[in-house]
């Protein structure tokens, strides 16, 4: 029975006690997992944390191994570019990775600049131009290209591409040499950042392209149909719908490729002449790369130089981590927006 009364201006409703109905006893709901499951969940969680554990181990170990170098040289390790190990003592040695760091970035930037038009056009081609049956085959081939080992790219880059590309470099220098970055001090165009950049462009293309294509494929169909309905052509729909929609995916894909390019070792080692001097002449036969520095100096390094290489490894690790993190954040945001 429900009785409603006015009390002090407020509407009060009170439920009067009623004779209890015979109801079944409440069953206790158990939401505790069984022991086996709890162990299972802990185990899987532990396994899933492998990636985190490995990453922190890499960072801390490289830091501790390189600590002597960081404490002895401080910021000079990043800002100077002399690499001298006289007698294995810190007092006489000089280590700085500026040239290598700048070189890495220069080579990766060239690679991305060269790859960019091809990334966009290939992604568009595969998504909007290629006949449906051919698409699966082409995508499979591209996946395979992404798996070609860097040593093969390096071999091909050195023995096949370099003779051609140094000729191209010579003619670029001939016509555009007045522009500072295309100038050279000596007429040697082999093993230049330009050549390495071309090889890297080829290597990062499949990765950058598959990310971009993935985002392009999610372009809103309604809007594309609307563009066509308004009398637009295929290019019109792409220009007004697909490209604006896929912009952040494209940036993310390019950054992901850049991360790959920064960390590439062997292909660069084979096609680039490492010189410890900060230079922006991309056609000249002198450049730098942190990853290749480690691989090339490793064999004959003294214990001290080894520590310097560990420190350089940490710098490279952090650089690629930042680039990759930025890339995956952008891609994730682009993909979330669609869902």
């Amino acid at each position, binding site marked *: 029975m429900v009785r409603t009364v006015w009390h002090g201006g407020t509407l009060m409703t009170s439920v009067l006690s009623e004779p209890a109905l015979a109801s079944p006893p409440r069953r206790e709901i158990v939401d505790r*997992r*069984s022991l086996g*499951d709890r162990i*299972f969940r802990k185990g*899987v969680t532990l*396994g*899933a944390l*492998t*990636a985190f554990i*490995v*990453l922190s*181990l*890499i960072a801390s170990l*490289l830091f501790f191994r390189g600590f002597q170098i960081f404490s002895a040289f401080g910021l000079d390790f990043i800002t100077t570019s002399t690499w001298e190990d006289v007698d294995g003592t810190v007092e006489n040695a000089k280590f700085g990775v500026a040239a290598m760091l700048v070189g890495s970035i220069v080579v990766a930037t060239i690679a991305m600049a060269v790859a960019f*038009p*091809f990334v966009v*056009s*290939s992604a568009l*081609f*595969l998504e*909007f*131009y290629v006949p449906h049956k051919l698409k699966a085959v082409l995508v*499979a*081939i591209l996946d*395979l290209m992404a*798996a*070609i*080992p*860097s*040593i*093969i*790219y*390096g*071999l*091909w880059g050195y023995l096949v*591409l370099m003779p051609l590309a140094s000729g191209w470099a010579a003619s670029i220098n001939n016509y555009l040499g007045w522009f500072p970055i295309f100038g050279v001090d000596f007429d040697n165009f082999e093993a230049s950042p330009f050549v390495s950049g071309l090889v890297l462009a080829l290597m990062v293309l499949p990765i950058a392209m598959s990310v971009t294509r993935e985002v392009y494929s999610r372009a809103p*169909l309604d809007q594309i*149909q609307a563009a066509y309905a308004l009398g*637009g*052509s*295929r*290019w019109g729909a*792409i220009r007004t719908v697909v490209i604006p929609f896929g912009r952040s995916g494209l940036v993310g894909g390019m950054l992901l490729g850049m991360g790959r390019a920064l*960390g590439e*070792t*062997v292909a660069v080692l*084979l096609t680039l002449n490492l010189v410890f001097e900060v230079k922006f002449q991309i056609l000249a036969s002198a450049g730098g790369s942190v*990853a290749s520095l*480690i*691989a090339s100096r*490793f064999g004959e390094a003294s214990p001290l130089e080894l520590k310097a*290489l*560990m420190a350089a*490894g940490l710098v*490279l690790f952090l650089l*690629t*981590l930042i*680039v*990759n*993190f930025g890339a995956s954040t952008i891609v994730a945001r682009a993909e979330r927006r669609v869902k």
Partner: protein
Amino acid sequence: MTNIEVKIPERQRPWINRGASVRELVVPVAIAAVVAAAINLLTGLAGALGFYFAFVLSYAVVAWFTGRRHDKVKGIDKLATAFITLGFATAFIPWASILFTVVRRGWPTIYGGYFTTDMRVTAADDDLAMGGLSHALVGTVLMLLVASVISIPLGILTAAYITEIRGKLSGFVRIMVQSMSGVPSIVAGLFIYATVVSRFKFSGLAGALALSILMLPTIARTAEEVLKLVPEEIRSASYALGASQMATTFRIILPAARSGLVTASMLGVARVAGETAPLILTSFYSAVFSLKMIGEPIGSLPMYTYQNFGVGTETALTRAWGGALVLMVLILILFSTARLLSGRGQK
């Protein structure tokens, strides 16, 4: 009561080109090729690169005029099509060149004994009818096996955490896997060098550890995609029958995704099979056939190629290409197996 069937028409993708005639495709290319050849012979745009630029230019012009016959919009559309197609085709030229060069330059090294002998008595410069890469092949296979044993379970566990446990750390784990996939291979090598090699010398085991670091993220990410494809109803049905989560995962979900998980593992293996940089620092190179994974360097296909490239004479370079060819075939086999296994049910 009658059942009313509602048919929702499939949404049209207006860009899909129905029946573009061959003539439409071939004629502009032929015209452009002829014009480009003429330009190439008569003007300063000589050589292969000159022909390429002449071709791009004349193809664009031809495309523009084929469209312009109708109206300007069509003209621009055709022009865009020309550039996009050419961009894609251009990207394929170097890859075709790589495949072609590897086969052509590597072929002379292949003979019966190439897979059964090693380089212990043969110098890099000796005749190609002597020596082989059995040591490198076995080293690569052994390291890949050990790396798989480490990485495949961990990779699948990582994926299972995200799709089955769905704990609070899912986002974090995904970010970590993503970051790990960006670790430069040389850094992975440096890490194993600092932890393992500096104490226990170069060894195949150290190489396998470095490879497993690089392999894990590929497997984890692909496996996650695969496990996501297992329908939610199957999980619910299993729980409704009173199965524990462990039983559901190990006896229902993972078997259901079996072929996909094999694909994920194969892709992971294929991705690291050709890694060179970490091996320079971990397994190093030995020219002697050996199955020992601990205490001494071991050969591998990428290091065999790298080593012979370093020698640099004509015969040694041919051997390097031979190593590259075998490596490429190995990766091709792994890759096509992975593709075949995942063939059904995926895009």
